[in-house]
């Protein structure tokens, strides 16, 4: 759906993105990176607001810059909190729908449906200037989905939303992705991204640091062994047996909780396959198993610092 080949974008002496190559398929993809990492630049290239200085960006097989055929199928929710303040939410979404070529006969129903999706029907007829930050965010999402695009691009969409609003929007995005559409969501908040999708593009200082499944990315970081946390009846009884496994590098007991141990492994898949037999042999019950660093926060930290 989106193909980016060697794309770089400079703003004078400042680099926005640097030699980024990736493809974004259908489903939900998160664009992750700290502020200034190049997320918004990449989004502007995809939505045809900017041209790459070098390289190429193609959406639906075409260059998106000012291309009506491509833009017809893109819904874009910008990060900036700017509107035509004197308009009501409904007027604004209607205008955006008409600019997106929603037929006049379908306009009212399309606008109503989009407003329902973001729970803004009740406040849709008051002026945007009176909206809270969360409401403005919802209206921005409504204008992005009003023409039922095949590709939805949301730049920091969860900013300003309360926990309920976040959950609703995440659910909306997942539903959209399940319909076979492509959604690109940018965020700098790792736990948000983790709740939405496992497929990420990680940007840092304009470069694409990693792409793919969070767990796959994690597996690539060999120099940072996986930590696995086990909770058993007696950790000190099973610990020595675990340490005998070739896949395990270290075992550490929890001083405060005798049932818990944490191990380090460079081959988690191998360890998991051996664990069943080991538990049976030791006659111990494992009540809880978790991988504390198999999350985005750790992945991000390893990649950026490592």
């Amino acid at each position, binding site marked *: 759906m989106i193909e980016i080949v060697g794309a770089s974008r400079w703003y004078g002496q400042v680099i926005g993105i640097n030699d980024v190559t990736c493809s974004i398929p259908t489903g939900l993809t998160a664009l992750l990176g700290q502020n200034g990492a190049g997320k918004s630049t990449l989004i502007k290239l995809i939505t045809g607001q*900017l041209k790459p200085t070098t390289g190429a960006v193609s959406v639906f097989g075409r260059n998106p810059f000012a291309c*009506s*055929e491509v*833009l017809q199928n893109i819904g874009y929710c910008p990060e900036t909190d700017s509107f*035509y303040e004197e308009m009501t939410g409904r007027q604004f979404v209607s205008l955006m729908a008409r*600019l*997106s*070529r929603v037929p006049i006969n379908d306009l009212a129903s399309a606008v109503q449906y989009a407003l329902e999706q973001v729970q803004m029907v009740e406040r849709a007829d008051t002026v945007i200037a009176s909206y809270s930050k969360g409401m403005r965010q919802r209206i921005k999402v409504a204008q992005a989905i009003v023409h039922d695009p095949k590709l939805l691009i949301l730049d920091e969409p969860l900013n300003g939303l309360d926990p309920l609003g976040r959950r609703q929007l995440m659910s909306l995005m997942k539903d959209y992705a399940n319909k076979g559409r492509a959604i690109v969501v940018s965020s700098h908040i790792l736990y948000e991204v983790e709740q939405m999708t496992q497929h990420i593009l990680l940007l840092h200082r304009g470069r694409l640091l990693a792409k793919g499944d969070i767990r796959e990315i994690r597996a690539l970081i060999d120099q940072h062994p996986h930590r696995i946390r086990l909770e058993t009846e007696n950790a000190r009884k099973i610990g020595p047996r675990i340490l005998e496994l070739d896949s395990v590098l270290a075992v550490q007991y929890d001083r405060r909780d005798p049932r818990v141990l944490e191990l380090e492994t460079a081959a988690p898949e191998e360890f998991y396959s051996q664990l069943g037999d080991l538990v049976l042999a030791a006659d111990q019950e494992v009540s809880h198993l978790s991988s504390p660093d198999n999350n985005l926060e750790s992945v991000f930290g390893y990649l950026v610092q490592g």
Partner: protein
Amino acid sequence: MSFFELLSWGLWDATRKRKLIGAAVICSVPVFLAIIPHFAHAGFNPSVAYDTVFPLAVQQFAMVLLCILYGTNAVAAEVSGKTIPFLLTRPTSRVSIFLSKWAAGTVFSSAATIICALLVALVIYGPSGIVGSPILRDALVIPVGVAVYMAVFCCLSTLLTRPSVPAIAYVFAFETWVWVVPGDFIKLSIMTYVRTISLHSPPVEQNGLAELVQQMRNSTVSMTTSWNTLAVILILALAIGCFAFSRGEYVPKEDTT
């Protein structure tokens, strides 16, 4: 989205409260100036008063200032207001958006300038004398001047981040003082052609510097030349504006640093 829908949206944009207040203030200045000749010591001559107030206060002040207000903001205000991404990520052609903004600005500024001119004529000639005044002729010519200035400033708006600065410099520095500069520099002023088609000659001080300068000029601008020149400027400015807007990148400045 049809052009007329875009136009009506542009007109809605033009009549937003802040812009409307700005337009009202601009248009009130010539009306107040029109009151002054009533208090002249040498006797009040409505024709002389109108021929002074209309070109200077209505054409060269209110009309061009409205064009600056609406023309230079056509694109630049969307960029600085950060609403531009909503427009440029839609399948509606950029040329249509640009032309609709120019058309809406022209319609609104023409209407505002005509109302301003009408009030000036009313103050100078009074309700009974307005029928015999040149207001009807001027009202027909105002949209031509507005369309040309608006096209130039809309064009500037697509090319520069702060187009109002050169626009103000051109109108209030160059066009104001070019009348007293010897040579053919006057032909670089749009106002020269606008005044020629509206049959309002430039103000000439008897036995003064302006009269002397006029005598030094070896050519005058004809009516045909004026119409042709204005048409060329209009088409050229719109063509450059359409070209620039359809190929340009318009991203709020903070997003590029």
